[in-house]
């Protein structure tokens, strides 16, 4: 079968298709869009990719993605050193920062334990977390992993490993989503919302 596409075009399609959530059709669409849109925008993308690879790294303290090491959040003197929030991914740090409800430090695990996918504790930044906990006098660790099976597994595992290493170990409250309807809430969420109810 003859391939009508020039090699560079096929190459970019293949690269796009390796990205999560992008199928072969979307990959082709994106590629042809870049061909049409003009050199400047296409090269801008290439530049951005190069920058991403060359100028970012993991923070050696919290393992968030950063330009400077330690990262801004780790070096900010106005944040509370006694509070540590453990999250799965860098994007979770952003989400919590947007809430403006937390002013402590972070630790990014880069994933969650998954027996189904074969992701074990040693595939995550868990030993680094334990070392950090041993070296610092923390008052509270907040386990802010996702309320998914993997996130729960990770929280259970961390609970076991952290044990008495910290005075207070907490988990994000699992309640009803804002704008949700009780009628459509699944029984696990509703059960936990009831358990975590607050006095008015």
């Amino acid at each position, binding site marked *: 079968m003859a391939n009508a596409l020039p090699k560079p075009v096929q190459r970019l399609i293949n690269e796009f298709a390796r990205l999560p959530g992008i199928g072969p059709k979307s990959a082709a669409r994106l590629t042809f869009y870049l061909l049409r849109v003009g050199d400047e925008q296409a090269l801008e993308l290439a530049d951005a990719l190069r920058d991403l690879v060359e100028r970012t790294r993991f923070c050696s303290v919290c393992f968030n993605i950063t330009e400077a090491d330690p990262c801004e959040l780790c070096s900010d003197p106005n944040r509370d050193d006694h509070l540590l929030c453990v999250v799965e991914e860098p994007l979770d740090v952003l989400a919590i920062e947007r809430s403006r409800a937390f002013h402590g430090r972070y630790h990014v695990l880069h994933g969650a334990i998954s027996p189904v996918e074969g992701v074990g504790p040693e595939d995550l930044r868990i030993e680094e977390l334990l070392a950090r906990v041993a070296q610092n006098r923390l008052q509270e660790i907040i386990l802010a992993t996702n309320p998914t099976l993997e996130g729960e597994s990770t929280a259970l595992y961390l609970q076991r490993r952290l044990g008495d290493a910290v005075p207070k170990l907490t988990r994000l409250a699992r309640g009803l989503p804002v704008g949700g309807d009780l009628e459509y809430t*699944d*029984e696990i969420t509703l059960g936990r919302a009831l358990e975590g109810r607050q006095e008015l």
Partner: protein
Amino acid sequence: MTRERTFRSEAIVLKRSDFGEADRLLTLFSREQGKLKAIAKGARKPQSRKTGHVELFMRSNFLFAKGHDLDIITQVEMVEAYAALRADLVRTTYASYAVELLDRFTVEHDKHLGLYQLLADALGWFAADEEMLLPARYYELRLLSLTGFQPQLFTCVSCAETIAEQDQFFSAELGGVLCPKCQTADRRAQPITAVALKVLRFLQTRPYDAVKQLHLRRPVHTELEHIMHTYLTHILERNLKSVDFLHRLRQEARP
């Protein structure tokens, strides 16, 4: 002839992965159509009506719409959450094992009510039973029988002589027990004790309610687990992720 545009089925969530902006791609084992893949739109958003009903291991009632490549989930309501599976890492691991095995032994769109019922039952055992080893062995043997890989435990796989309940050999390669005379038919056959053989036969032929009453000593459990895992990885030609994970958990638990 009109093509049916929607269909309904109860199904259990075997696997899920992120898809697009906020969707999930689910691998389901359904009562009506066997294994299938379907998209749950918006299911990564906490406020989605689907979110709490399409988590791993959940058994839910689904309404699907036929799509181009993939079916789309239009409605879903949870039937059984097996909540205890989520509260304990060992239970989670055994549930993962049940689901991984079923996934590996099935192909898409091959309806199998017996397997569906077995998986639903097994998730219930792993959620509620005190110990996990017996239900795991029972599940493996039932699954093997239902998928055509039932190990031969009553007659020798080489000479077909009746096998006595005494120390024998188990051949993963030949799919069952070898009598001492035929031991050389498979040089990698492993010894199996009389008691382990007896238990395997019991598990293969009795209902779970009877199996549940058994109390085995630790070495027997270890032997059975080893034989079954060897047999399963031989058939599947690969290690199982959840088994590797279980071994790691155990290693860590050791002082």
